[in-house]
């Protein structure tokens, strides 16, 4: 039995230890405590619109199937036959009446029930003893989360302020609904998975890592380059490990976040006004969608949805897809191109983030690699709800991530 890992030593108020990214034992501990025992994001209901539609996802080393059942409910189950353990479904998406194992032909229903065993003469166990493992599942506005074990934290408590972040994303649609039908780009990182959520809500690196982009293009990002006090965006720790860069205070006009104007996307503005009323719609179109991570593996990436997938202590995959808005199909083309511009292996931004993360992974693999985490401790503020806010370049977000991580890893939340 390995010695218990002291996360209070490794994660302090103002610094963390680099072994958190590189230690094999910590990685195994994370899979067990974060990915197999706590709530994780699986997928969105718009990916499985019809009965029998399914997608497969990898959570840690475990493949799961998210499937729309005959009664319209969504089930998430382990993608492993209960007979001799074969992978039940090798496709990443599709539609099925039921799942037939390719090895010996056992048939499971969309709800995971074992329906039929071939040549039943030699098998006399009750079928219901060998149903698929079904995960505890809950969803909020189509975002499906699941837990392999009986969760110690209720879904509502887990999501906390994350609900309001998801609301803000969905409400960008005049119908209040998003549609993830654009396909997933998957980008391989030779870096620990935690560098992804950390970097995605790090407002400090933009001028450096993305300098080439700022220099090459005239875009909203250009507005964030400048003296420290000219940066108006803010960073937030919403609690429960959920974090955000709120760009809105830095926007100069409506639809800055879309790189557009009300004249250019008039039909979208009109539908938003019709749904929400002029005052509210104008505010939403000014503020834009959230740029926020929902602990541990979901990123509401403005007009994209992103999933973080750990694939080993030294590697991870970032999934990304454009967040199409129901009721505004006229934006689809623009959202596709915006998604490709920002996210994925060929993008103007993420390609460089990946290189930086990979260099960090290498640099942190030896010696006594303490990483500073103190930026903004001298100026962040906390409201009565415990939500912390600071200058956009501060590490308030990463402290939020790590301190929640520490509590989960130490079993201090329940």
């Amino acid at each position: 039995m390995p010695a218990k890992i002291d996360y209070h030593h490794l994660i302090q108020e103002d610094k963390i230890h680099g072994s958190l990214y590189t230690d094999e034992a910590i990685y195994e501990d994370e899979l067990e405590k974060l990915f197999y025992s706590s709530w994780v994001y699986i997928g969105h209901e718009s990916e499985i619109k019809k009965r029998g539609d399914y997608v497969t996802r990898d959570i840690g080393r475990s493949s799961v199937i998210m499937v729309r059942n005959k009664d319209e409910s969504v089930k998430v189950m382990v993608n492993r036959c209960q007979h001799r353990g074969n992978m039940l479904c090798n496709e990443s998406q599709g539609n099925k009446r039921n799942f037939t194992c390719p090895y010996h032909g056992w048939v499971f229903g969309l709800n995971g029930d074992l329906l039929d065993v071939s040549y039943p003469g030699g098998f006399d166990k009750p079928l219901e003893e060998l149903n698929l493992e079904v995960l505890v599942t809950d969803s909020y506005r189509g975002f499906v989360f699941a837990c392999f074990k009986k969760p110690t934290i209720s879904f509502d408590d887990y999501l906390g302020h994350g609900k309001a972040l998801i609301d803000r994303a969905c409400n960008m649609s005049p119908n209040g609904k998003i549609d993830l039908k654009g396909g997933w780009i998957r980008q391989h990182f030779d870096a620990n998975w935690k560098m992804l959520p950390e970097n995605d809500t790090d407002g400090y690196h933009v001028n450096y890592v993305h300098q080439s982009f700022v220099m090459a293009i005239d875009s909203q990002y250009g507005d964030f380059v400048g003296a420290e006090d000219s940066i108006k965006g803010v960073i937030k720790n919403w609690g429960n490990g959920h974090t955000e860069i709120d760009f809105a205070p830095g926007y100069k006009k409506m639809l800055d976040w879309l790189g557009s104007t009300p004249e250019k996307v008039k039909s979208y503005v009109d539908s938003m006004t019709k749904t929400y009323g002029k005052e509210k719609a104008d505010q939403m179109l000014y503020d834009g969608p959230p740029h926020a991570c929902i602990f541990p593996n979901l990123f509401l990436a403005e007009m994209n949805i992103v999933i973080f997938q750990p694939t080993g202590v030294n590697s991870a995959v970032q999934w990304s897809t454009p967040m199409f808005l129901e009721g505004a199909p006229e934006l689809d083309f623009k959202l596709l191109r915006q998604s490709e511009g920002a996210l994925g292996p060929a993008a103007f931004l993420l390609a460089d983030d990946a290189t930086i993360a990979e260099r960090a992974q290498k640099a942190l693999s030896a010696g006594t690699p303490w990483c500073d985490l103190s930026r903004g401790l001298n100026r962040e503020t906390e409201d009565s709800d415990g939500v912390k806010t600071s200058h956009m370049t501060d590490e308030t977000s990463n402290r939020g991530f790590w301190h929640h991580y520490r509590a989960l890893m130490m079993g201090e939340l329940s």
Partner: protein
Amino acid sequence: MSQIMSAELTKRLEDFVIKEAKLADEGEYQAWEDLWADDGVYWVPLKEGDDPTQQVSHLYDNRTRLATRIRQLKTGYRYSQMPISGMRRVISNYEFFAEADGRYRVEANFFLPEYSIQSIHDFRLWSGRYIYTLSPRDDGFQIHIKKVLLVNGSEPIPSLAFLI
């Protein structure tokens, strides 16, 4: 069916593709960009059959975005290609087609060994099919479409910041 094309013409088309590949391999960004027509589209879909108006691609650059991509590479701060990867692509199995509008379509398989030296120093192998739409310009050709069908485009792939 392809119309009969002279060996002289197919040789010139092949030479053009080889030149384009060499400029990409060697990071001759400006010379590479100059090969493009004003309506150029540089496209790497996730997989065969994807519709770029409905599905996300690894990249789908119109001429303006292509110019931005080249400007970014030329800044000297594009970390994911700083320094540029070692690359020597091999192109083979050519097929040549004359299109009705006076354009030519050239299809060929490629195999691209990349030595990625920006972070982990990794030797990577890329492979797939190039599909070019070209038309005559001056005494050579210009590129209207370069579509790159990767054999593993819908799987997780590492940085694709170089010109593929």
